[in-house]
């Protein structure tokens, strides 16, 4: 096995990014996969925001409230609809959720339509997707609650004063999530290179 095969494949050229865009567009051109992407993005974003406020979400769903109050509380937890996040964090959260949707749709398409098993490509892609989602959740926590969550997490590893280590108050995790998801999308697109999606060449 040559060493070159062991190096991670990274989207380093404009062609790689065009490949990602074209492949995503072809997959999402199917209404079923577009719906899957949308549902996944909404579920991911909801998991991020409700995960920060489990008690409040539970209260909104189970307390004797009017429908309007219930909806106000639940919607108020989302970026752009509430005030839990700053503007940069809001954009990153929605971007992470959106890319998670695209990634899941592409992974599902590739596995189902191209009958790809969980071999090295599948494991790499799935692993990157999972890493992206975990980092996205951590980034959402840091975005909502300052660096306290990060400080707590890093204190487990004996890192004191952790809040001063990261200049973006934990949004670095959201950026890492974006990177992980983009890598996953690239690896899927690269795996479909030369093939066809809904009859169109990739």
């Amino acid at each position, binding site marked *: 096995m040559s060493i070159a095969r062991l190096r991670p494949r990274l989207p380093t050229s404009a062609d790689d990014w065009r490949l990602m865009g074209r492949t995503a567009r072809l997959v999402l051109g199917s209404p079923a996969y577009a719906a899957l992407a949308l549902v996944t993005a909404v579920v991911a974003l909801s998991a991020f925001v409700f995960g*920060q*406020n489990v*008690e*409040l979400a*539970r*209260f*909104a769903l189970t*307390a004797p*409230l009017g429908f*309007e*109050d*219930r909806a*106000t*509380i639940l919607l*108020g*937890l989302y970026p752009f609809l*509430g*005030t*839990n*996040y*700053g503007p940069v964090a809001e954009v990153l959260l929605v971007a992470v959720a959106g890319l998670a949707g695209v990634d899941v749709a592409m992974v599902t398409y590739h596995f189902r339509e191209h009958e790809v098993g969980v071999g090295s490509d599948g494991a790499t892609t799935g692993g990157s997707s999972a890493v992206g989602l975990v980092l996205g959740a951590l980034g959402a926590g840091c975005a*909502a*609650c*300052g*660096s*306290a*969550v990060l*400080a*707590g997490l890093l204190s487990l590893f004996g890192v004191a*004063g952790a*809040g*001063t280590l990261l200049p973006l*108050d934990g949004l670095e995790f959201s950026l890492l999530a974006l990177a992980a998801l983009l890598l996953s999308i690239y690896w899927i697109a690269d795996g479909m290179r030369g093939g066809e999606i809904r009859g169109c060449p990739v």
Partner: protein
Amino acid sequence: MYQHLRVRRSGRGYDYQIDRRGGNRGDDDRRNDGLRDRGRIASSCPRCAAFETETVPKLREQAGDRVSFVLRSYPVVYPWGEPATQAIEAAFAREMEVGEMGSGESGEGNESGGVPADAPYGFRQGSEATWALVRHYFEEQSQFGEENVFEKTRTFLAEETDLDAEAVVDDAEAKQYDDAVQADLSAGEAADVGRTTPTIFLFRDGEFRTSAKGSISFEVVEAALEL
């Protein structure tokens, strides 16, 4: 820091209070005849600052005299938050002592009357200077660090309040009121707050409703407390 949001049916007037755990806790509970909201906020936490500057003023404006706040410190974010919290507790203690000496009463401030719409935070309790310090920490967060927090606190108190700035900072450096800081930290751990700030506890008519993490909006508080 903690923030208690109290919505009172009795309409005794809107107020901001700094809550001291320990000795006056019983009195505090007995006064809670209405809605209450507790929150924990760290002065070095950006989202705490957002809650303080965006949600709290709107609550004061929209909910009027049905809501009051009680602040509790929870310094778990940046290192300068801990000495800042010591300074807040020291300022509060000094301010209450001055209030007792002036009124001969238990530092209740202006409990008996209504609160003017433009009254400063802490008017009812007599803790205006402490609240001014709290807001100063939030508004100038990016300027503070562990190496300058006491100096900047001294300067602010000397220039903007009537408190003995040197005495407050001396007390803070000596951790004279560390029992109050530790009591709030312990209470937060007991309440399973973890390391999340701000955390807001919402009460109505003396009954706990729910808690919220992050700089929740006025609309969410309004809906949760059915204001």
